[in-house]
Protein backbone atom coordinates (compact mmCIF):
# COMPACT_ATOMS: atom_id res chain seq x y z
CA UNK A 1 0.00 0.00 0.00
CA UNK A 2 2.82 2.40 0.75
CA UNK A 3 3.62 4.90 -1.90
CA UNK A 4 2.63 3.06 -5.05
CA UNK A 5 0.25 5.85 -5.96
CA UNK A 6 1.07 9.09 -4.19
CA UNK A 7 -1.91 11.45 -4.28
CA UNK A 8 -1.73 14.29 -6.81
CA UNK A 9 -1.68 17.95 -5.83
CA UNK A 10 -5.37 18.37 -6.70
CA UNK A 11 -6.69 15.56 -4.53
CA UNK A 12 -4.29 16.48 -1.75
CA UNK A 13 -5.54 20.06 -1.58
CA UNK A 14 -9.16 18.89 -1.85
CA UNK A 15 -8.61 16.57 1.12
CA UNK A 16 -7.10 19.39 3.18
CA UNK A 17 -9.90 21.75 2.20
CA UNK A 18 -12.49 19.21 3.31
CA UNK A 19 -10.76 18.61 6.62
CA UNK A 20 -10.44 22.36 7.15
CA UNK A 21 -14.11 22.88 6.32
CA UNK A 22 -15.08 20.26 8.89
CA UNK A 23 -12.94 21.70 11.65
CA UNK A 24 -13.30 25.44 10.99
CA UNK A 25 -16.68 26.00 12.73
CA UNK A 26 -15.32 24.22 15.77
CA UNK A 27 -12.09 26.22 15.78
CA UNK A 28 -13.80 29.58 15.37
CA UNK A 29 -15.32 29.40 18.86
CA UNK A 30 -11.89 29.24 20.43
CA UNK A 31 -10.84 32.86 19.63
CA UNK A 32 -14.40 34.02 20.28
CA UNK A 33 -14.26 32.49 23.76
CA UNK A 34 -11.02 34.33 24.40
CA UNK A 35 -12.39 37.73 23.37
CA UNK A 36 -11.86 40.80 25.57
CA UNK A 37 -15.21 42.30 24.44
CA UNK A 38 -18.58 41.99 26.18
CA UNK A 39 -20.38 40.55 23.16
CA UNK A 40 -19.77 37.63 20.75
CA UNK A 41 -16.79 38.76 18.67
CA UNK A 42 -13.18 38.08 17.86
CA UNK A 43 -10.58 39.43 20.34
CA UNK A 44 -9.62 43.08 19.61
CA UNK A 45 -7.06 44.40 22.11
CA UNK A 46 -5.86 41.02 23.38
CA UNK A 47 -7.08 37.72 24.71
CA UNK A 48 -8.87 37.33 28.00
CA UNK A 49 -10.03 34.41 30.12
CA UNK A 50 -12.72 36.37 31.92
CA UNK A 51 -15.58 34.61 30.14
CA UNK A 52 -14.28 31.28 31.37
CA UNK A 53 -14.19 32.79 34.84
CA UNK A 54 -17.81 33.94 34.42
CA UNK A 55 -18.93 30.45 33.45
CA UNK A 56 -17.07 28.71 36.22
CA UNK A 57 -18.39 31.08 38.87
CA UNK A 58 -22.01 31.30 37.72
CA UNK A 59 -24.41 29.04 39.65
CA UNK A 60 -26.68 28.80 36.58
CA UNK A 61 -23.92 27.52 34.28
CA UNK A 62 -22.48 25.19 36.90
CA UNK A 63 -25.95 23.91 37.75
CA UNK A 64 -26.63 23.13 34.09
CA UNK A 65 -23.27 21.44 33.66
CA UNK A 66 -23.94 19.27 36.71
CA UNK A 67 -27.48 18.49 35.55
CA UNK A 68 -26.32 17.56 32.05
CA UNK A 69 -23.63 15.37 33.52
CA UNK A 70 -25.91 13.42 35.87
CA UNK A 71 -28.53 13.00 33.14
CA UNK A 72 -25.87 11.77 30.71
CA UNK A 73 -24.48 9.28 33.25
CA UNK A 74 -27.92 7.89 34.10
CA UNK A 75 -28.94 7.78 30.42
CA UNK A 76 -25.69 5.99 29.54
CA UNK A 77 -26.34 3.33 32.16
CA UNK A 78 -29.79 2.79 30.68
CA UNK A 79 -28.50 2.66 27.08
CA UNK A 80 -25.60 0.33 27.89
CA UNK A 81 -27.70 -2.13 29.87
CA UNK A 82 -30.53 -2.33 27.36
CA UNK A 83 -28.31 -2.13 24.27
CA UNK A 84 -25.83 -4.78 25.43
CA UNK A 85 -28.53 -7.24 26.46
CA UNK A 86 -30.35 -6.67 23.17
CA UNK A 87 -27.19 -7.20 21.10
CA UNK A 88 -26.25 -10.37 23.01
CA UNK A 89 -29.78 -11.72 22.75
CA UNK A 90 -29.92 -11.11 18.98
CA UNK A 91 -26.49 -12.67 18.57
CA UNK A 92 -27.38 -15.81 20.52
CA UNK A 93 -30.76 -16.41 18.93
CA UNK A 94 -29.66 -15.21 15.50
CA UNK A 95 -32.76 -15.80 13.40
CA UNK A 96 -34.44 -13.64 10.82
CA UNK A 97 -36.67 -12.16 13.53
CA UNK A 98 -33.63 -10.93 15.42
CA UNK A 99 -32.51 -9.00 12.34
CA UNK A 100 -35.82 -7.18 12.55
CA UNK A 101 -35.25 -6.45 16.22
CA UNK A 102 -31.84 -5.05 15.43
CA UNK A 103 -33.28 -2.72 12.77
CA UNK A 104 -36.00 -1.64 15.22
CA UNK A 105 -33.30 -0.78 17.72
CA UNK A 106 -31.69 1.54 15.18
CA UNK A 107 -34.95 3.50 14.66
CA UNK A 108 -34.07 6.34 17.05
CA UNK A 109 -31.03 7.00 14.85
CA UNK A 110 -33.05 7.02 11.64
CA UNK A 111 -36.11 9.02 12.73
CA UNK A 112 -35.57 12.82 12.92
CA UNK A 113 -35.28 13.68 16.60
CA UNK A 114 -37.90 16.40 16.26
CA UNK A 115 -40.46 13.78 15.24
CA UNK A 116 -39.38 11.64 18.13
CA UNK A 117 -39.60 14.64 20.47
CA UNK A 118 -43.20 15.40 19.45
CA UNK A 119 -44.14 11.82 20.22
CA UNK A 120 -42.41 11.93 23.58
CA UNK A 121 -44.17 15.18 24.45
CA UNK A 122 -47.56 13.59 23.72
CA UNK A 123 -47.21 10.65 26.02
CA UNK A 124 -44.87 12.02 28.69
CA UNK A 125 -47.59 14.53 29.67
CA UNK A 126 -50.11 12.02 31.06
CA UNK A 127 -47.26 10.07 32.67
CA UNK A 128 -46.08 13.15 34.56
CA UNK A 129 -42.59 12.88 33.08
CA UNK A 130 -42.45 16.34 31.51
CA UNK A 131 -39.74 18.57 32.96
CA UNK A 132 -38.53 15.71 35.16
CA UNK A 133 -35.00 14.33 35.52
CA UNK A 134 -36.37 10.81 34.97
CA UNK A 135 -38.17 11.84 31.79
CA UNK A 136 -35.03 13.26 30.17
CA UNK A 137 -32.99 10.24 31.30
CA UNK A 138 -35.51 7.88 29.67
CA UNK A 139 -35.63 9.91 26.46
CA UNK A 140 -31.82 10.13 26.20
CA UNK A 141 -31.27 6.59 27.38
CA UNK A 142 -33.63 5.07 24.83
CA UNK A 143 -32.30 7.13 21.94
CA UNK A 144 -28.75 6.19 22.98
CA UNK A 145 -29.45 2.46 22.61
CA UNK A 146 -28.58 2.29 18.87
CA UNK A 147 -24.98 3.36 19.51
CA UNK A 148 -24.53 0.56 22.04
CA UNK A 149 -26.30 -2.04 19.86
CA UNK A 150 -24.04 -1.16 16.93
CA UNK A 151 -20.75 -1.25 18.83
CA UNK A 152 -21.61 -4.36 20.86
CA UNK A 153 -22.89 -6.23 17.77
CA UNK A 154 -19.62 -5.42 16.02
CA UNK A 155 -17.66 -6.74 18.99
CA UNK A 156 -19.79 -9.90 19.05
CA UNK A 157 -19.26 -10.51 15.34
CA UNK A 158 -15.57 -10.90 16.14
CA UNK A 159 -16.27 -13.18 19.13
CA UNK A 160 -15.38 -16.83 18.50
CA UNK A 161 -18.57 -18.83 19.24
CA UNK A 162 -16.43 -21.82 20.16
CA UNK A 163 -15.36 -19.94 23.30
CA UNK A 164 -18.96 -20.06 24.45
CA UNK A 165 -19.19 -23.76 23.54
CA UNK A 166 -15.95 -24.40 25.39
CA UNK A 167 -17.23 -22.62 28.49
CA UNK A 168 -20.48 -24.57 28.48
CA UNK A 169 -18.66 -27.82 27.78
CA UNK A 170 -16.64 -27.22 30.93
CA UNK A 171 -19.83 -26.86 32.94
CA UNK A 172 -20.36 -23.09 32.98
CA UNK A 173 -23.96 -21.91 33.31
CA UNK A 174 -25.30 -19.23 31.00
CA UNK A 175 -24.71 -16.44 33.52
CA UNK A 176 -21.18 -17.66 34.27
CA UNK A 177 -20.42 -17.81 30.55
CA UNK A 178 -21.81 -14.30 30.16
CA UNK A 179 -19.86 -12.82 33.07
CA UNK A 180 -16.53 -14.58 32.64
CA UNK A 181 -16.24 -15.19 28.92
CA UNK A 182 -18.56 -13.08 26.78
CA UNK A 183 -18.58 -9.75 28.65
CA UNK A 184 -14.80 -9.48 29.10
CA UNK A 185 -14.36 -10.16 25.39
CA UNK A 186 -16.85 -7.50 24.27
CA UNK A 187 -15.98 -4.95 26.98
CA UNK A 188 -14.22 -2.59 24.51
CA UNK A 189 -17.36 -2.58 22.37
CA UNK A 190 -19.53 -1.84 25.38
CA UNK A 191 -17.18 0.96 26.45
CA UNK A 192 -17.24 2.56 22.99
CA UNK A 193 -21.02 2.36 22.98
CA UNK A 194 -21.10 3.95 26.42
CA UNK A 195 -18.96 6.87 25.26
CA UNK A 196 -21.19 7.50 22.26
CA UNK A 197 -24.35 7.18 24.33
CA UNK A 198 -22.89 9.64 26.83
CA UNK A 199 -21.98 12.17 24.14
CA UNK A 200 -25.42 11.73 22.59
CA UNK A 201 -27.13 12.71 25.84
CA UNK A 202 -24.55 15.37 26.74
CA UNK A 203 -25.21 17.52 23.65
CA UNK A 204 -28.84 16.63 22.92
CA UNK A 205 -31.06 19.73 22.53
CA UNK A 206 -34.16 19.06 20.43
CA UNK A 207 -35.88 16.61 22.78
CA UNK A 208 -34.97 18.67 25.82
CA UNK A 209 -36.67 21.71 24.24
CA UNK A 210 -39.88 19.71 24.06
CA UNK A 211 -39.94 17.74 27.28
CA UNK A 212 -38.19 20.07 29.72
CA UNK A 213 -38.81 23.66 30.67
CA UNK A 214 -37.69 25.11 34.00
CA UNK A 215 -36.65 22.39 36.45
CA UNK A 216 -34.52 20.48 34.01
CA UNK A 217 -32.22 22.95 32.33
CA UNK A 218 -29.38 21.11 30.59
CA UNK A 219 -26.24 22.69 29.27
CA UNK A 220 -27.17 22.67 25.54
CA UNK A 221 -30.50 24.18 26.57
CA UNK A 222 -28.77 27.01 28.44
CA UNK A 223 -26.49 27.72 25.46
CA UNK A 224 -29.53 27.80 23.21
CA UNK A 225 -31.36 30.23 25.48
CA UNK A 226 -28.24 32.36 25.84
CA UNK A 227 -27.94 32.72 22.06
CA UNK A 228 -31.60 33.66 21.78
CA UNK A 229 -31.60 36.21 24.59
CA UNK A 230 -28.17 37.84 24.73
CA UNK A 231 -24.91 37.38 22.90
CA UNK A 232 -22.74 36.71 25.94
CA UNK A 233 -19.29 35.33 24.95
CA UNK A 234 -19.62 33.03 27.98
CA UNK A 235 -21.45 30.71 25.58
CA UNK A 236 -18.35 30.40 23.45
CA UNK A 237 -16.36 29.61 26.58
CA UNK A 238 -18.86 26.87 27.44
CA UNK A 239 -18.62 25.60 23.89
CA UNK A 240 -14.85 25.33 24.18
CA UNK A 241 -15.22 23.42 27.44
CA UNK A 242 -17.72 21.11 25.76
CA UNK A 243 -15.42 20.46 22.82
CA UNK A 244 -12.50 19.70 25.12
CA UNK A 245 -14.59 17.29 27.17
CA UNK A 246 -15.91 15.47 24.09
CA UNK A 247 -12.41 15.31 22.63
CA UNK A 248 -11.19 13.76 25.87
CA UNK A 249 -13.87 11.06 25.70
CA UNK A 250 -13.02 10.22 22.09
CA UNK A 251 -9.32 10.03 22.91
CA UNK A 252 -10.14 7.67 25.79
CA UNK A 253 -12.10 5.49 23.36
CA UNK A 254 -9.21 5.45 20.91
CA UNK A 255 -6.66 4.64 23.58
CA UNK A 256 -8.80 1.77 24.81
CA UNK A 257 -9.20 0.33 21.33
CA UNK A 258 -5.51 0.57 20.65
CA UNK A 259 -4.71 -1.20 23.90
CA UNK A 260 -7.07 -4.01 22.98
CA UNK A 261 -5.70 -4.46 19.51
CA UNK A 262 -2.05 -4.32 20.54
Amino acid at each position, binding site marked *: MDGIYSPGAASRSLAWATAFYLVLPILIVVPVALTDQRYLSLPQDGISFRHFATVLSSPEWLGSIWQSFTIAVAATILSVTAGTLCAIGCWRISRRATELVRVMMLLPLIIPSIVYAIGLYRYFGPLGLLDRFLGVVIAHGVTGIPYVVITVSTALAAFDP*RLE*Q*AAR*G*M*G*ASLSQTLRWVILP*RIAPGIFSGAIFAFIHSWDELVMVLFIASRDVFTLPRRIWDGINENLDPAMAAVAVLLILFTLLLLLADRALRRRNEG
Partner: protein
Amino acid sequence: MSAAAGHALGLRGLTKRYGDFIAVNDVSLEIGQGEFVTLLGPSGSGKTTILMAIAGFVAPSEGAVLLDGRDITPLPPEKRNFGMVFQGYALFPHMTVAENVAFPLRVRGMSKADRDAKVRAALDLVQLAQFAGRLPKQLSGGQQQRVALARALVFDPSLLLLDEPLSALDKKLRAELQEELKALHRRVGRTFINVTHDQEEALSMSDRIAILNHGRLVQAGAPGELYERPRTRFVADFLGKSNFLEGTVRQPAPGGFMLEAGASRLAVAHGQGAALPPGTRSLLSLRPEKIALLAEGETAENQVEGRILSWSYLGAGFALRIATPDLGELRAVLPAWKSPVAPAEDLPVRLGWSADAAVPVEEDAA
Protein backbone atom coordinates in the same frame (compact mmCIF):
# COMPACT_ATOMS: atom_id res chain seq x y z
CA MET B 1 -2.97 -45.30 36.95
CA SER B 2 -6.63 -45.11 37.71
CA ALA B 3 -8.41 -47.20 35.13
CA ALA B 4 -11.52 -46.93 37.29
CA ALA B 5 -11.68 -43.24 36.30
CA GLY B 6 -12.54 -44.24 32.74
CA HIS B 7 -16.17 -44.46 31.72
CA ALA B 8 -17.85 -46.44 28.98
CA LEU B 9 -19.80 -44.67 26.29
CA GLY B 10 -22.38 -46.18 24.00
CA LEU B 11 -24.01 -44.88 20.86
CA ARG B 12 -27.30 -46.54 19.93
CA GLY B 13 -28.64 -45.96 16.45
CA LEU B 14 -27.46 -42.36 16.47
CA THR B 15 -28.96 -40.38 13.58
CA LYS B 16 -28.81 -36.68 12.80
CA ARG B 17 -30.73 -35.07 9.96
CA TYR B 18 -30.48 -31.48 8.76
CA GLY B 19 -33.57 -31.16 6.60
CA ASP B 20 -33.10 -33.76 3.85
CA PHE B 21 -29.42 -34.18 4.55
CA ILE B 22 -28.46 -37.10 6.77
CA ALA B 23 -25.25 -36.15 8.54
CA VAL B 24 -25.13 -39.23 10.76
CA ASN B 25 -26.94 -42.39 9.75
CA ASP B 26 -27.79 -45.04 12.37
CA VAL B 27 -24.39 -45.25 14.06
CA SER B 28 -23.98 -47.68 16.94
CA LEU B 29 -20.67 -47.99 18.74
CA GLU B 30 -19.50 -49.18 22.15
CA ILE B 31 -16.48 -47.45 23.65
CA GLY B 32 -15.00 -49.24 26.64
CA GLN B 33 -13.58 -47.84 29.89
CA GLY B 34 -10.20 -46.22 29.39
CA GLU B 35 -10.18 -46.82 25.65
CA PHE B 36 -8.67 -44.42 23.12
CA VAL B 37 -11.07 -44.48 20.20
CA THR B 38 -10.67 -42.43 17.04
CA LEU B 39 -13.52 -41.51 14.73
CA LEU B 40 -11.87 -41.36 11.33
CA GLY B 41 -13.37 -40.19 8.09
CA PRO B 42 -13.10 -37.69 5.27
CA SER B 43 -14.72 -34.28 5.72
CA GLY B 44 -18.49 -34.55 5.63
CA SER B 45 -18.44 -38.11 6.96
CA GLY B 46 -20.32 -37.10 10.11
CA LYS B 47 -17.48 -37.69 12.55
CA THR B 48 -17.58 -34.21 14.07
CA THR B 49 -21.37 -34.31 14.31
CA ILE B 50 -21.07 -37.55 16.31
CA LEU B 51 -18.53 -35.94 18.65
CA MET B 52 -20.78 -32.90 19.08
CA ALA B 53 -23.71 -35.20 19.86
CA ILE B 54 -21.60 -36.96 22.50
CA ALA B 55 -20.63 -33.56 23.94
CA GLY B 56 -24.27 -32.43 23.90
CA PHE B 57 -23.95 -29.55 21.44
CA VAL B 58 -25.95 -31.40 18.78
CA ALA B 59 -29.29 -33.01 19.61
CA PRO B 60 -29.65 -36.32 17.75
CA SER B 61 -32.73 -36.77 15.52
CA GLU B 62 -32.90 -40.40 16.61
CA GLY B 63 -30.97 -42.76 18.83
CA ALA B 64 -29.29 -42.35 22.18
CA VAL B 65 -25.99 -41.59 23.86
CA LEU B 66 -25.30 -43.74 26.94
CA LEU B 67 -22.72 -43.17 29.65
CA ASP B 68 -22.07 -46.36 31.63
CA GLY B 69 -25.44 -47.60 30.38
CA ARG B 70 -27.34 -44.48 31.49
CA ASP B 71 -29.14 -42.49 28.79
CA ILE B 72 -27.65 -38.97 28.74
CA THR B 73 -29.15 -37.84 25.41
CA PRO B 74 -31.32 -35.05 26.90
CA LEU B 75 -28.56 -33.61 29.12
CA PRO B 76 -27.17 -30.19 28.07
CA PRO B 77 -23.38 -30.01 27.60
CA GLU B 78 -22.76 -28.22 30.90
CA LYS B 79 -24.33 -31.14 32.81
CA ARG B 80 -22.29 -33.91 31.14
CA ASN B 81 -18.92 -33.41 32.80
CA PHE B 82 -16.93 -34.20 29.64
CA GLY B 83 -13.60 -32.61 28.89
CA MET B 84 -13.19 -31.31 25.38
CA VAL B 85 -10.31 -30.06 23.28
CA PHE B 86 -11.72 -27.98 20.46
CA GLN B 87 -10.35 -27.56 17.00
CA GLY B 88 -8.23 -24.40 17.30
CA TYR B 89 -8.29 -25.01 21.11
CA ALA B 90 -10.79 -22.25 22.00
CA LEU B 91 -8.60 -20.95 24.81
CA PHE B 92 -9.97 -17.81 26.46
CA PRO B 93 -7.71 -15.08 25.08
CA HIS B 94 -8.29 -12.68 27.96
CA MET B 95 -7.22 -15.18 30.63
CA THR B 96 -3.75 -16.40 31.49
CA VAL B 97 -2.81 -20.04 31.09
CA ALA B 98 -3.49 -20.67 34.77
CA GLU B 99 -6.86 -18.87 34.60
CA ASN B 100 -7.82 -20.88 31.54
CA VAL B 101 -7.02 -24.14 33.28
CA ALA B 102 -8.78 -22.98 36.46
CA PHE B 103 -11.97 -22.08 34.56
CA PRO B 104 -13.76 -25.44 34.87
CA LEU B 105 -12.92 -25.51 38.59
CA ARG B 106 -14.12 -21.94 39.07
CA VAL B 107 -17.53 -22.69 37.52
CA ARG B 108 -17.82 -25.57 39.97
CA GLY B 109 -17.33 -23.15 42.86
CA MET B 110 -14.07 -24.73 44.06
CA SER B 111 -12.08 -22.71 46.62
CA LYS B 112 -9.04 -20.79 45.40
CA ALA B 113 -6.56 -22.94 47.33
CA ASP B 114 -7.93 -26.23 45.94
CA ARG B 115 -8.07 -24.67 42.50
CA ASP B 116 -4.44 -23.60 42.59
CA ALA B 117 -3.25 -27.06 43.59
CA LYS B 118 -5.22 -28.75 40.82
CA VAL B 119 -4.11 -26.22 38.20
CA ARG B 120 -0.49 -26.77 39.15
CA ALA B 121 -0.89 -30.53 38.89
CA ALA B 122 -2.60 -30.24 35.50
CA LEU B 123 0.08 -27.89 34.14
CA ASP B 124 2.77 -30.25 35.43
CA LEU B 125 1.06 -33.06 33.59
CA VAL B 126 1.55 -31.23 30.28
CA GLN B 127 4.92 -29.72 31.31
CA LEU B 128 3.77 -26.11 31.15
CA ALA B 129 4.10 -25.06 34.79
CA GLN B 130 6.51 -22.23 33.95
CA PHE B 131 4.01 -20.67 31.52
CA ALA B 132 1.17 -20.31 34.03
CA GLY B 133 1.21 -16.50 33.95
CA ARG B 134 1.29 -16.08 30.16
CA LEU B 135 -1.57 -15.27 27.85
CA PRO B 136 -2.49 -17.86 25.21
CA LYS B 137 -1.29 -15.64 22.36
CA GLN B 138 2.18 -15.65 23.88
CA LEU B 139 2.44 -19.42 23.43
CA SER B 140 3.30 -21.53 20.39
CA GLY B 141 0.66 -23.72 18.74
CA GLY B 142 1.92 -26.86 20.44
CA GLN B 143 1.93 -25.18 23.85
CA GLN B 144 -1.60 -23.86 23.32
CA GLN B 145 -2.67 -27.37 22.46
CA ARG B 146 -1.23 -28.63 25.73
CA VAL B 147 -2.99 -25.87 27.69
CA ALA B 148 -6.26 -26.98 26.06
CA LEU B 149 -5.50 -30.55 27.18
CA ALA B 150 -4.74 -29.47 30.74
CA ARG B 151 -7.95 -27.44 30.84
CA ALA B 152 -9.95 -30.38 29.54
CA LEU B 153 -8.49 -32.80 32.10
CA VAL B 154 -8.22 -30.66 35.23
CA PHE B 155 -11.77 -31.28 36.46
CA ASP B 156 -11.55 -35.09 36.26
CA PRO B 157 -14.01 -35.41 33.40
CA SER B 158 -15.76 -38.70 32.67
CA LEU B 159 -14.51 -38.58 29.09
CA LEU B 160 -12.07 -36.56 27.05
CA LEU B 161 -13.31 -35.51 23.63
CA LEU B 162 -10.78 -34.30 21.08
CA ASP B 163 -11.92 -32.51 17.92
CA GLU B 164 -9.05 -32.61 15.40
CA PRO B 165 -6.63 -31.75 18.22
CA LEU B 166 -3.51 -31.70 16.06
CA SER B 167 -4.79 -30.33 12.77
CA ALA B 168 -3.48 -26.79 13.34
CA LEU B 169 0.11 -27.94 13.87
CA ASP B 170 2.91 -28.55 11.41
CA LYS B 171 3.87 -32.08 10.51
CA LYS B 172 6.85 -32.57 12.79
CA LEU B 173 5.12 -31.14 15.85
CA ARG B 174 2.09 -33.27 15.06
CA ALA B 175 4.16 -36.46 15.21
CA GLU B 176 5.65 -35.37 18.55
CA LEU B 177 2.30 -34.53 20.07
CA GLN B 178 0.79 -37.80 18.83
CA GLU B 179 3.24 -39.62 21.04
CA GLU B 180 2.63 -37.21 23.90
CA LEU B 181 -1.11 -37.61 23.65
CA LYS B 182 -0.80 -41.37 23.68
CA ALA B 183 1.50 -41.27 26.71
CA LEU B 184 -0.93 -38.89 28.43
CA HIS B 185 -3.74 -41.33 27.78
CA ARG B 186 -1.77 -44.08 29.47
CA ARG B 187 -0.95 -41.86 32.44
CA VAL B 188 -4.46 -40.60 33.16
CA GLY B 189 -6.24 -43.84 32.23
CA ARG B 190 -9.33 -42.03 31.00
CA THR B 191 -11.55 -42.74 28.04
CA PHE B 192 -10.44 -40.61 25.06
CA ILE B 193 -12.58 -40.05 21.98
CA ASN B 194 -10.69 -38.40 19.15
CA VAL B 195 -11.91 -37.12 15.80
CA THR B 196 -9.59 -36.76 12.84
CA HIS B 197 -9.32 -37.04 9.09
CA ASP B 198 -5.64 -37.93 9.35
CA GLN B 199 -5.24 -41.70 9.00
CA GLU B 200 -1.66 -41.68 10.25
CA GLU B 201 -2.74 -39.97 13.46
CA ALA B 202 -5.56 -42.49 13.89
CA LEU B 203 -3.28 -45.48 13.34
CA SER B 204 -0.54 -44.29 15.67
CA MET B 205 -2.63 -43.20 18.66
CA SER B 206 -5.79 -45.27 18.89
CA ASP B 207 -6.71 -48.48 20.66
CA ARG B 208 -9.57 -48.69 18.24
CA ILE B 209 -10.63 -46.80 15.10
CA ALA B 210 -14.16 -46.30 13.83
CA ILE B 211 -14.19 -45.44 10.13
CA LEU B 212 -17.05 -43.31 8.89
CA ASN B 213 -18.19 -42.43 5.42
CA HIS B 214 -21.31 -40.56 4.33
CA GLY B 215 -22.60 -40.57 7.91
CA ARG B 216 -22.35 -44.33 8.30
CA LEU B 217 -20.03 -46.42 10.43
CA VAL B 218 -18.19 -48.55 7.87
CA GLN B 219 -15.91 -50.56 10.13
CA ALA B 220 -14.57 -50.39 13.67
CA GLY B 221 -11.65 -52.25 15.12
CA ALA B 222 -8.05 -52.17 16.27
CA PRO B 223 -5.76 -50.24 13.89
CA GLY B 224 -3.88 -53.38 12.79
CA GLU B 225 -7.10 -55.27 12.21
CA LEU B 226 -8.51 -52.48 10.05
CA TYR B 227 -5.31 -52.15 8.09
CA GLU B 228 -4.83 -55.87 7.51
CA ARG B 229 -8.49 -56.85 7.11
CA PRO B 230 -10.38 -53.91 5.63
CA ARG B 231 -14.00 -54.87 5.13
CA THR B 232 -14.71 -52.59 2.17
CA ARG B 233 -12.92 -50.87 -0.66
CA PHE B 234 -13.36 -47.50 1.08
CA VAL B 235 -11.64 -48.68 4.26
CA ALA B 236 -8.74 -50.20 2.31
CA ASP B 237 -8.34 -47.01 0.32
CA PHE B 238 -8.78 -44.49 3.14
CA LEU B 239 -6.59 -46.23 5.72
CA GLY B 240 -3.29 -46.44 3.91
CA LYS B 241 -3.01 -47.06 0.18
CA SER B 242 -4.18 -50.08 -1.71
CA ASN B 243 -4.23 -51.79 -5.10
CA PHE B 244 -7.52 -53.34 -6.09
CA LEU B 245 -7.60 -56.60 -8.08
CA GLU B 246 -10.83 -57.69 -9.66
CA GLY B 247 -11.56 -61.20 -10.94
CA THR B 248 -13.66 -64.37 -10.75
CA VAL B 249 -13.51 -66.91 -7.93
CA ARG B 250 -12.29 -70.40 -8.97
CA GLN B 251 -11.55 -73.53 -6.93
CA PRO B 252 -12.99 -72.21 -3.67
CA ALA B 253 -11.87 -73.89 -0.47
CA PRO B 254 -12.27 -72.91 3.20
CA GLY B 255 -9.90 -70.04 3.80
CA GLY B 256 -8.88 -69.49 0.21
CA PHE B 257 -9.53 -69.62 -3.55
CA MET B 258 -7.98 -68.93 -6.92
CA LEU B 259 -8.79 -65.61 -8.51
CA GLU B 260 -9.00 -65.59 -12.28
CA ALA B 261 -8.16 -62.22 -13.77
CA GLY B 262 -7.60 -62.34 -17.53
CA ALA B 263 -4.93 -64.96 -18.17
CA SER B 264 -3.57 -64.71 -14.62
CA ARG B 265 -4.51 -67.02 -11.78
CA LEU B 266 -3.78 -65.73 -8.34
CA ALA B 267 -3.71 -67.75 -5.13
CA VAL B 268 -5.67 -66.11 -2.31
CA ALA B 269 -5.47 -67.32 1.27
CA HIS B 270 -7.77 -65.02 3.22
CA GLY B 271 -8.09 -67.39 6.15
CA GLN B 272 -11.72 -66.53 6.76
CA GLY B 273 -14.06 -69.47 7.35
CA ALA B 274 -16.76 -69.74 4.70
CA ALA B 275 -15.83 -70.53 1.11
CA LEU B 276 -16.99 -68.15 -1.60
CA PRO B 277 -19.20 -69.72 -4.29
CA PRO B 278 -17.25 -70.33 -7.52
CA GLY B 279 -17.90 -67.97 -10.39
CA THR B 280 -18.66 -64.92 -8.22
CA ARG B 281 -16.84 -61.66 -8.86
CA SER B 282 -14.39 -60.79 -6.16
CA LEU B 283 -12.43 -57.68 -5.30
CA LEU B 284 -9.08 -57.95 -3.55
CA SER B 285 -7.13 -55.30 -1.70
CA LEU B 286 -3.37 -55.61 -2.01
CA ARG B 287 -1.15 -53.18 -0.07
CA PRO B 288 1.70 -51.67 -2.14
CA GLU B 289 4.32 -52.66 0.45
CA LYS B 290 3.34 -56.32 0.18
CA ILE B 291 4.40 -56.49 -3.46
CA ALA B 292 8.04 -57.44 -4.03
CA LEU B 293 10.24 -57.03 -7.11
CA LEU B 294 11.53 -60.51 -7.86
CA ALA B 295 15.20 -60.99 -8.66
CA GLU B 296 16.44 -63.44 -11.33
CA GLY B 297 15.38 -66.97 -10.41
CA GLU B 298 13.38 -65.85 -7.36
CA THR B 299 9.81 -67.17 -7.09
CA ALA B 300 6.68 -66.27 -5.14
CA GLU B 301 3.22 -67.78 -4.69
CA ASN B 302 1.85 -65.17 -7.06
CA GLN B 303 3.92 -63.82 -9.93
CA VAL B 304 3.00 -61.16 -12.43
CA GLU B 305 5.04 -59.57 -15.21
CA GLY B 306 4.91 -55.88 -15.99
CA ARG B 307 6.71 -52.75 -16.99
CA ILE B 308 7.63 -49.81 -14.82
CA LEU B 309 5.53 -46.77 -15.80
CA SER B 310 7.12 -44.34 -13.38
CA TRP B 311 9.08 -44.39 -10.18
CA SER B 312 10.04 -42.04 -7.41
CA TYR B 313 12.69 -42.20 -4.75
CA LEU B 314 11.44 -41.55 -1.21
CA GLY B 315 14.65 -42.01 0.72
CA ALA B 316 13.48 -45.01 2.66
CA GLY B 317 12.00 -46.64 -0.41
CA PHE B 318 10.99 -46.57 -4.03
CA ALA B 319 7.40 -45.99 -5.08
CA LEU B 320 6.67 -47.65 -8.42
CA ARG B 321 3.78 -47.59 -10.82
CA ILE B 322 3.78 -50.77 -12.87
CA ALA B 323 1.64 -51.65 -15.88
CA THR B 324 0.52 -55.28 -16.01
CA PRO B 325 -1.46 -56.96 -18.81
CA ASP B 326 -4.16 -58.61 -16.63
CA LEU B 327 -4.32 -56.52 -13.44
CA GLY B 328 -3.96 -53.02 -14.84
CA GLU B 329 -1.76 -50.55 -13.07
CA LEU B 330 -0.27 -51.62 -9.74
CA ARG B 331 1.48 -49.52 -7.14
CA ALA B 332 4.37 -51.00 -5.21
CA VAL B 333 6.55 -49.61 -2.46
CA LEU B 334 9.86 -51.35 -1.79
CA PRO B 335 12.76 -50.70 0.55
CA ALA B 336 15.37 -48.81 -1.45
CA TRP B 337 18.38 -50.42 0.22
CA LYS B 338 17.54 -53.92 -0.94
CA SER B 339 15.87 -53.40 -4.26
CA PRO B 340 17.03 -56.16 -6.62
CA VAL B 341 16.97 -53.86 -9.65
CA ALA B 342 17.59 -50.18 -10.19
CA PRO B 343 14.21 -48.82 -11.28
CA ALA B 344 13.94 -47.23 -14.71
CA GLU B 345 11.02 -46.32 -16.89
CA ASP B 346 9.87 -49.06 -19.29
CA LEU B 347 11.99 -51.65 -17.47
CA PRO B 348 10.35 -55.11 -17.58
CA VAL B 349 9.99 -56.50 -14.04
CA ARG B 350 8.47 -59.48 -12.28
CA LEU B 351 6.27 -58.81 -9.27
CA GLY B 352 5.53 -61.33 -6.58
CA TRP B 353 3.43 -61.59 -3.44
CA SER B 354 2.35 -64.30 -1.09
CA ALA B 355 -1.11 -65.89 -1.10
CA ASP B 356 -2.07 -64.24 2.19
CA ALA B 357 -1.04 -60.74 1.09
CA ALA B 358 -4.30 -59.85 -0.65
CA VAL B 359 -7.64 -59.77 1.18
CA PRO B 360 -11.14 -59.80 -0.32
CA VAL B 361 -13.09 -56.57 0.25
CA GLU B 362 -16.66 -55.53 -0.52
CA GLU B 363 -17.63 -52.73 -2.84
CA ASP B 364 -19.13 -49.91 -0.82
CA ALA B 365 -22.82 -49.23 -1.11
CA ALA B 366 -23.20 -46.04 -3.11
